[in-house]
């Protein structure tokens, strides 16, 4: 009975509401959550390993830029695993909604030639 009282009455009172404060503050996500993939433009050597690894062909790489279509991306991190330079990382950024289809394509200039 005391345990019941503690778990069902006291604990919720101490803990406060479970409802996320999300739209008001940035979302708090579990560490494993995968969001917007970003590339380190200094480390990328445009090898194209990520292009080959991507299951939905969301990535295009030219000499100048690394381009990712978020509308195709399934956030699987295969690109990050495949990159020989370890230049790609998936961030915790998940608020990615856009008004225009073209705005879903993110482009990062490639500045470095790798190591």
């Amino acid at each position, binding site marked *: 009975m005391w345990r019941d009282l503690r778990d069902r009455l006291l604990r919720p009172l101490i803990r406060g509401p479970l409802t996320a404060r999300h739209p008001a503050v940035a979302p708090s*996500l579990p560490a494993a959550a995968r969001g917007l993939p970003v590339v380190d433009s200094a480390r990328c050597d445009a090898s194209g390993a990520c292009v080959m690894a991507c299951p939905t062909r969301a990535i295009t790489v030219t000499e100048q830029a690394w381009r990712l279509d978020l509308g195709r991306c399934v956030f699987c991190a295969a690109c990050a695993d495949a990159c020989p330079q370890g230049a790609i990382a998936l961030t915790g950024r998940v608020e990615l909604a856009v008004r225009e289809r073209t705005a879903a394509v993110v482009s990062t200039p490639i500045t470095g030639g790798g190591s």
Partner: protein
Amino acid sequence: VSTTKESAVVASAEALLAPRTLPDAIRRTLGRSLHIRHLDAGSCNACDWEIAALLNPIHDLQRLGIDVVASPRHADLLLVTGTMTRNLELAALRSFEAMPEPRLVVATGACAISGGVFAGSYASRDGIGSVLPVDVWIPGCPPRPEALIHGLLVAVGRMEAFPHERS
């Protein structure tokens, strides 16, 4: 005094004549409230479960004045998941046509945007964009509930679209 009055009249006339974007029309008609009809157009159900998670006590969508309704006739926004299979094209169009104006369409997840992992299939379109006029695209596979909330608030002009300031 008269000039300010005149300029106010001119300003309001200009506001009336200016082409309104849909979020403006939505805000004028609905205020901050929004009713959603969820339409599954051939989804794997991952997006649908994330939408279901919006209604749990953690995300509690109703606290934002947004709710899910059971008919497109009651809805302001069509939340579409899935690749738009050929068999569902007509149903999707009819759902859209049944909605009162102003109406919004949101493409949810990689499938609804581009076909995702099913792109190029003979059995479906590559996303819903070729059938319905999409207002907001929510990337993700599936998009997290936070991403869905962001997309819905972008649709009604209550949040900024990506890329925004907040990380």
